[in-house]
């Protein structure tokens, strides 16, 4: 991996200037601001069309560096989940709640939590959910 990199430098004899974080790229800050506004900011790969909710430098599918920000609708289905009765500091006053892995309708996966879920009977696998605009910590989902 590095070998190729050194070869390239030797040819052009300069440090690559492309690749800096730029406008229009998802950052942790813009992702978290998006959540407060009810939007999930993800990546769209300009080359292969893959969509991801993540912080990326290259596309995990085709390894293109041409990644654009794309807004996702925030609706999807629950793939799996747990009900937390003991939680990290930020969530200690919210228990019990469900921490869910959601597959969004556009394809990418994301996690979040659903308040007031006590029992597996409250949340079947495959349950449709949507992003809830909220000032609670993290990504909050609600059942549709």
């Amino acid at each position, binding site marked *: 991996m590095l070998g190729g990199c050194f070869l390239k430098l030797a040819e052009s004899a300069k440090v690559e200037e492309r690749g800096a974080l730029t406008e229009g790229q998802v950052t942790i800050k813009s992702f978290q601001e998006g959540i407060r506004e009810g939007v999930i900011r993800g990546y769209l790969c300009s080359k292969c069309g893959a969509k991801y909710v993540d912080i990326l430098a290259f596309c995990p599918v085709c390894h293109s560096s041409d990644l654009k920000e794309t807004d996702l609708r925030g609706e999807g289905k629950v793939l*799996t989940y747990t009900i937390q009765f003991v939680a*990290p500091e*930020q969530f200690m006053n919210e228990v019990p709640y469900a921490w869910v892995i959601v597959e969004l309708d556009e394809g990418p996966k994301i996690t979040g939590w659903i308040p007031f879920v006590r029992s597996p009977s409250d949340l079947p696998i495959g349950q449709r959910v949507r992003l809830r605009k909220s000032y609670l910590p993290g990504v909050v989902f609600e059942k549709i």
Partner: protein
Amino acid sequence: MRRVYVLGAGITKYGKSPFSARELALEASRKAILSAQLSPSEIQAGFVANAFSLSEKQGHLGPIVMSGLGIPDAPASTIESACASGASAVREAWINIGAGIYDCMLVVGVEKVSQLDTITATTYFSFGSDYIFEGACGASFPGLYGALARAHMTKYGTTELQLANVAVKNHENALLNPNAHLHKKISVEDVLHSPVVASPLKLFDSCPFSDGAAAAVLCSEDYLRLKGRTLSEKILIRGSGRAGGTGALHQRKDLTTLGAAVLAGREAFNRAGLSYKDIDFAEVHDCFTIAELVAEEDLGFFPRGDAAKMTEQGVTKIGGDLPINPSGGLKAKGHPVGATGVGQVVEIFEQLNGIAGERQVKDSRIGLTHNVGATGGSCGVHIFELT
């Protein structure tokens, strides 16, 4: 690659300790160096496996430990790979010795977390997830494995009762291990009725927060010859494998397997020229009961979805066809994060040398260790053989 041996091993008792990480690391290191029948001056370099030493306001553990061993000139640095720090450190030492850079190295894993209350410790452990997308969205460590357990139950019909069987077995084994954190016989009912932590996982499905340290002295075959040591009845690292996976559990295609464990296992078996059938017993990463079943399936010991049945039938007990976690595993021996992977090597060392006491696995020559970082962002697998 030159052949690399485990010449000595040492371990502290796991559990709540009054000692700091540096003291625990020194105890395990001293035991390992004495077990190898060496002077510390023979140690040329070292790796310290550790994840949370900053919680004790101490970074840069390498020189602190080497200084305490009386060899401050020997270089040592910390390797952090969450719960797989231990296997990563063993792997790096294996590479360094195999490549001929050093002939004799110390690997010591250590963790000290009992000064933290449960909520703070839970928070620290959640830092090992992809924090922005998992921990900060409400996932605790048991929560991540709880989600994995539910996915496994949904796909294969695994039951909470079957998960409980794993805990009961590993507690039984730990009763025979004087260094284990938990010495408590439990029943399936105890597990099923213990408080829910992150459903379907309950308190007794979960490993404890442990303090402790484990160490091993690794050396080259050339070194053994140079020192006039015999090459027979020694513990050879026959295969090593290490692989990565997405830092976040939810980014995986399949939520019922840890891809890094599959890949690391494959590499270790390939390098060893062995198959899963050649393994006499294994120490696997059972941070939660579900993790032991997934490990057995990822390593190919049992077909997907069959591990729970095999546990039920006693196949994985000491005395069964394939003993898993004779030490008690992370579940009951304990899980001092940085120490865990090195502690697995110590168990292999004791078992293969026939000095494991009441928990001895009879007639074993080949043992395997499987050590996972977080939910499989990293994994190291090693195969050891008594020559």
